[in-house]
């Protein structure tokens, strides 16, 4: 991944920074320029909590190249306490441990190395509570 593209997303990937609409109060993650709920254009920066629960999940058995050495790995859509949903890996557990509604905590983790000489990419993953 080109470094500028990686760098731009650091506030979201490292700190879960989101935008709260000053008009309707709904939170957008990642931040948007226009609130999809009310059309508002004014926001304040907020950070999402690291607590949530699994909405749905799967285990990936066939992965794109950068993740092929990690299969099988589990992926879930997680709803955080603020009502915001994210797609994330669920790690440090077996695929059969996952379930709809199970509580998770968001943690900071290595995602994958960018080739043999590139940067190491980091981001968020979830662990079962």
């Amino acid at each position: 991944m080109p470094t500028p593209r990686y760098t731009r997303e650091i506030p979201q990937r490292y700190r879960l920074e989101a935008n709260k609409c000053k008009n309707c109060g709904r939170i957008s993650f990642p931040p948007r320029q226009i609130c999809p709920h009310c059309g508002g254009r004014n926001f304040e920066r907020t950070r999402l909590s690291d607590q949530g629960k699994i909405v749905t999940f799967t285990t990936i058995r066939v992965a794109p190249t950068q993740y092929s050495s990690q299969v099988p790995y589990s992926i879930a859509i997680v709803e955080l306490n603020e009502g915001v949903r994210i797609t994330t890996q669920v790690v440090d557990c077996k695929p059969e441990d996952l379930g709809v509604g199970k509580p998770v905590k968001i943690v900071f983790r290595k995602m994958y190395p960018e080739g043999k000489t590139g940067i190491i990419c980091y981001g968020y993953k979830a662990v079962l509570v």
Partner: protein
Amino acid sequence: MRDVYIIGVGMTKFGELWGKSLRQIFVEAALSAIDDAGVDHIESMYVGAMTTGLFVGQEHIGALMADYLGSAPVPAVRVESACCSGGMALRMGFFEVASGNSNIVLVGGVEKMTDGADVTAALATAADQEYEVYQGVTFPGLYALIARAHIARFGTTRKQLAAVSVKNHHNGSLNPNAQFQNEVTLDQVINATLVADPLTILDSSPVSDGAACAILVSEEVMKKAKRPAVKIIGSGAATDYLALHQRDDITVLNAVKRSAERAYKMAGIGPEKIDFAEVHDCFSIAELCIVEELGFVEKGKGGPFIEAGNTALDGKIPVNSSGGLKAKGHPVGATGIAQVFEVVEQLRGNADKRQLKDVHIGLTQNMGGSGASSVVHIFKLAE
């Protein structure tokens, strides 16, 4: 708007066409459609293709295909909306004829997926690169997330999902253009290699090469052609949040629902008037959700509806008589036009072993990504 008719269709066989190039398969399908229509020229063309740049390193598809079809200097443009690029190309051609700007327009779709590209990564560009793909999700993964949510909410069973693939493989066994012309059993689907739990390789459409084209004309040209014509009576398109996780209800394909509503409104009919449909079964769960969104059955009841045989060739509303994406193959950009090929052949009574009885109105539904874009068309045999 003027009325728009289809007077010719053509397609290549779908499959691993290693001996043929991207431009060859497109021209083959285009010539077949032109010959079927009996026209001696075209005035404009729209080519649906998802990501020829990643698959074969070639962009500028509109000009390339007009050139190799010997049709330059006609205007030609490539249309992209991920896996519904073909259906959207049809919609662009429909409006061009309806507007009165052209009388004979070629719409087509093409994709060459087996030339060695990283297909999983190329297809994943239709998802949110920064917030889905970065996390390691794949397309089978996204549909698996939908499947799990549908199972949890409505009690849909693994067997009901498998019934989609069994039906589509049966239909494909009757289609000489299909990539897979073999039957599969429920047990084979359920016990096949897992791609993303609970979906197996036999819940998934294949990697394919192929092209399909159709000739759209005005009423004046249609009358002179003196051959069976199919009228496009409805066209609807819609979009949704690109990332699956942003949607309020993971089990609802809202773009499909909205695109269908718009097409029904234009046609002045409801789902009860549709005799048969070709839908975007990129994964078994997709067809199950789509029959719900199209209004063929109440939301959440897609599983039992399909399991009871309602969508089989002899069912209440046959779905994917061609074999669908699952068995016919899914060269992504070509799929939307190949659906039109099937509907036109069925309405004209040319579908041979898989010919449906007493069909007058057909529907196509083509969608992009995990359902962030969808396009629906409704067709009727012209009097």
